[in-house]
């Protein structure tokens, strides 16, 4: 009984000591808000990437800020932005006012990231966007640098570069069709109706005829469409042998599944965010075979020496392949933390000046921030050989494999000998039902 009483007293003393020492302990932390739709894979990957980075950094002793070591503390904020933009604004406001974070990473839907960006700028907090692609998010930095300079793009590169890369993928697929089927290329453009696709649709509509291909039509279903049989019927009647997809929502699964069930004789290429996920095969009941999409990470493909350790670490911990929103990892580990250590401060203005001028490796390539035509930093990611290019991947018999860049010639006129191939690439395959046509 006496021992028990003593034990309770010791516990009480420990609690009091902890409570009084909390402010001192709390002062030695760096608070990073991780914002995203946490009920969806995109948000869960925001969180997964951030926790991996924080755990690795904390295990190694923390972040050296001047003369002291600080631990990273992550604050999870569920933006629910894929369903409700107001929720996203509220989540960001809470990070600023209640949690008083030092930095924020995340964001997914452009429509939600705009207000999030404004809130973070109001509080002069560095916000690294890890999900939204719209050019305008970084154009704002260039046009109103004083206000928006705290925003950086973490991933993916901007929409117009996504479109540019997709054109490369289109050309790669067209070459295979020409070689194997000797048929003229007819392209059906199918893009979900969301802000981020608008620029891409215009660009692709303008580009396809210039490439000697016929654009047979443009279809724009809702991002949450659950039935696209009418669209598929019209596409098949148009005689298209390539379906250029621009999907980030649920329609990516609907479209791939129904097109596979109907055996539409066309190769799907472009962006289909749902097809980047491990669960795509099961979600389409295997009907998503031969779907080609742009991606950031594919098992077995290595962009540089950082790719494999990141992929292996993620797989070991989360039992899967990271999607691009898991680049919160790179944003914390290779962007924020080295900058804080170099500057020796958490001051946003000092950090911005250092961060924007850096060039550094991340698991998906190399980061260099762009300037606009007036020479003002936009904090947008540089695209191209040697920097970030993304990976083209295709579902082949239940496995997502890397197919691009595979002997890609980025500038055949000026550099005819420059061919780029990432480690782990395999050839593009056409659906067998295309060959029976």
């Amino acid at each position: 009984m006496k021992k028990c009483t003593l034990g309770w007293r010791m516990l009480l003393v420990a609690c009091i000591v902890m409570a009084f020492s909390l402010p001192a302990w709390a002062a030695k932390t760096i608070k990073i808000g991780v914002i995203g739709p946490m009920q969806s894979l995109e948000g869960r990957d925001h969180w997964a990437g951030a926790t991996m980075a924080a755990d690795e950094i904390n295990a190694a002793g923390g972040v050296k800020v001047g003369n002291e070591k600080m631990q990273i503390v992550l604050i999870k904020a569920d933006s629910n932005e894929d369903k409700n933009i107001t929720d996203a604004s509220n989540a960001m406001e809470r990070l600023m006012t209640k949690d008083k974070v030092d930095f924020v990473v995340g964001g997914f839907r452009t429509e939600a990231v705009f207000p999030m960006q404004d809130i973070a700028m109001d509080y002069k907090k560095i916000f690294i966007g890890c999900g939204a692609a719209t050019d305008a998010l970084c154009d704002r930095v260039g046009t109103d640098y004083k206000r928006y300079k705290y925003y950086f793009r973490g991933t993916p590169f901007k929409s117009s570069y996504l479109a540019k890369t997709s054109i490369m993928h289109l050309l790669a697929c067209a070459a295979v069709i020409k070689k194997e089927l000797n048929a003229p290329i007819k392209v059906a453009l199918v893009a979900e109706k969301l802000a981020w696709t608008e620029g891409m649709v215009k660009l692709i509509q303008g580009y396809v005829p210039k490439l000697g291909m016929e654009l047979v039509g443009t279809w724009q279903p809702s991002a949450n469409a659950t039935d696209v049989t009418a669209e598929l019927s019209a596409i098949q009647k148009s005689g298209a042998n390539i379906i250029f997809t621009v999907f980030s929502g649920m329609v990516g699964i609907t479209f791939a599944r129904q097109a596979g069930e109907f055996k539409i004789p066309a190769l799907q290429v472009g962006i289909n965010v749902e097809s980047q996920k491990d669960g795509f095969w099961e979600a389409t009941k295997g009907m998503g075979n031969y779907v080609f999409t742009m991606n950031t990470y594919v098992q077995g493909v290595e962009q540089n020496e950082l790719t494999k350790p990141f992929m292996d670490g993620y797989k070991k911990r989360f039992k899967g392949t990271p999607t691009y929103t898991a680049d919160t990892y790179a944003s914390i580990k290779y962007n924020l933390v080295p900058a804080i250590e170099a500057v020796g401060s958490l001051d946003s203005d000092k950090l911005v000046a250092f961060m924007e001028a850096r060039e550094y490796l991340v698991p998906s390539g190399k980061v260099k921030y762009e300037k606009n035509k007036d020479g003002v930093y936009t904090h947008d990611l540089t695209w191209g050989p040697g920097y970030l290019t993304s990976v083209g991947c295709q579902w082949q018999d239940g496995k997502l494999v890397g197919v691009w860049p595979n002997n890609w010639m980025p500038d055949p006129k000026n550099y005819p000998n420059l061919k780029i191939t990432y480690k782990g690439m395999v050839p593009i395959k056409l659906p067998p039902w295309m060959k029976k046509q």
Partner: protein
Amino acid sequence: MDILITGLITGSMLALLAIGFSLIFGVARIINIAHTAFYMVAAYGIFYFSIRLGLNPILSMLISVAFVTLIGVLVYKFIIDPIREHEGAVLIATMTLAMFLQEVILQLFTGDFRSIDFMIGGYFTVAGYKIFYQQLLTFGVVLIMLLAIWFLLMKTRLGLAIRSMAEDREVANLMGMNESRLAMITLAISVALAGFTGAVIGPLMVLNPHMWMEPLIIMMAVVVLGGLGSIKGSFIAAFILGFTEALVVFLVPTGAFLKGPVALIIMILVLLMRPEGLFGVAFEEER
């Protein structure tokens, strides 16, 4: 031909949803906003029993339909019945229930998209247009359900009682009918219909915890267009909106995303021009 086939298939899906909703409103004046949430629960039930537990799809369907019907009865007994006289309260309660069911599904299955296997795989071609056997099955089930409801309402004592109550609640009560019990039975039938809808449409859909919202809006547009409480009206209105959707997709390909808004515009126009709908009766507040 494309528009005809697409319109028929879309219309049959909408009809199946709208009939159950219309039935409970026509009989008991209950606006059950959770109707499509029950359909979502049934679809997830089939996913759980057939994919997770590996049970036979037909058995999974029966278990799921029975399960949602049971939930429906419990909901009536403990939530709707005590507040039935206040239509606004019922509306809010069923809306809250739908959101609650959404959150439960979200916690149990996460927000990831899921799919169910087709009950009948494959497709056939009519005039160059491809149709899934599953879509044909949906069309067939709609017809069977309609026949079953017609038989129930017109040829059975229960149907007679339900019709009497729909005609005049108070008189039916005075004639010795247990009005509350009849409303519960009708709600159970309505929820079972939503469950069957989830069972036959589920394989054609992508499952997610928010899948009840979009059909709810279109279903309400169907019900308003057809006339609140009119089963015949719901059936015809479902096909009108089905054909409208098909027309939008085929005639304005770049405006395919406008399928939903067009249905809503029709609903608003009907409310403005003929509030009782095509086949509805203007209900009196007091009898």
